[in-house]
């Protein structure tokens, strides 16, 4: 079992760099997909970029989505509602997604490392969310 991780940011560069930092710790088995910026590369959020990142990250064990702030959060929530609707209306084949309420970088690192151990979606989500209580000094 390997949970996938999607990183949603206003900034394509921030999503990509965070995926690289977390991937350096988790190793290559965890699919970390950045979904930053608008579909034309500007600052903002694109539901279609997030949707295709979710598809890429999903290996059948579910996908955890981390968001930086503002429109990233609102767009990820909207996608989640969409996928749940589609799952009800259609064949039920949509990936299971869980949104993480977590600090972006610290949550991504914690989630990626735990995902690399084969933990399930709920456990990976909790490790990201517990990153609010980590301290650095």
């Amino acid at each position, binding site marked *: 079992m390997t949970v996938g991780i999607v990183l949603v940011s206003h900034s394509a560069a921030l999503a990509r760099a965070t995926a690289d930092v977390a991937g350096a710790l988790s190793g290559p088995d965890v699919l970390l997909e950045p979904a930053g910026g608008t*579909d034309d590369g500007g600052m903002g*959020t*694109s*539901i279609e970029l997030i949707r295709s990142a979710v598809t890429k990250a999903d290996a059948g064990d579910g996908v955890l989505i981390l968001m930086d702030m503002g*429109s990233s959060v*609102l*767009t990820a*929530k*909207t996608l989640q*509602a969409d996928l749940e609707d589609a799952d009800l209306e259609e064949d039920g084949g949509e990936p299971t997604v869980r949104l993480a309420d977590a600090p972006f970088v610290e949550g991504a690192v914690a989630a990626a490392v735990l995902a690399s151990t084969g933990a399930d979606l709920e456990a990976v989500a909790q490790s990201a969310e517990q990153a609010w209580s980590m301290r650095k000094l």
Partner: protein
Amino acid sequence: MTLDTATTIAWITRAAELVRADESRLTALDAAIGDGDHGANLARGLAAAVTAMGEKEPESPGKALIAAGRGLVAKTGGASGPLYGTGFRRAGKELGDGGDVGQVGAALEAMLRGIEELGGATQGDKTIIDALAPAVVAFQEAAGNGSDLHAAAEAAADAADAGLAATVPLQARKGRASYLGPRSVGHEDPGAASTALILRALADVTAP
């Protein structure tokens, strides 16, 4: 008159026109307390909404609003995209095949609830809600007093304008502007300003 499919399409098309005409004003408002993209975001999002309705050829007012909502979510790029997009989709689900003044009032209320649920804002947070909530109240009050669709939409648009003006002294508690704390005071909220245009567009297209 009722809000039939053609009038619904006309509403969103008119909203796109009004936003495009005022794009630089909306952008300037967002530059003051946000990141200066609200005008461009919503002009792009509403253009996509119009295109989506054109492609879908919806056979009911409700389906027209759902298509518009999808276009908005897909292309706006900022916080206002998922908010308005979810709002229009909720309104469309509520509206269905209907379109009399009472049904439109219920649809606007569903739009309000959808935006509240997604964004977690309440009145006074200096957002879309500060224009939309009083507009819904005014619309339903007018409808309750026997107004027709146009008169109710006029009342809603006027209430939205008043709600927009009332955002000036508020400190933002949601969205990017909330990061500014007290510095967000003294400016109109860009999302409240675009909401006022969307309701004005409804009044425009329902005029006899």
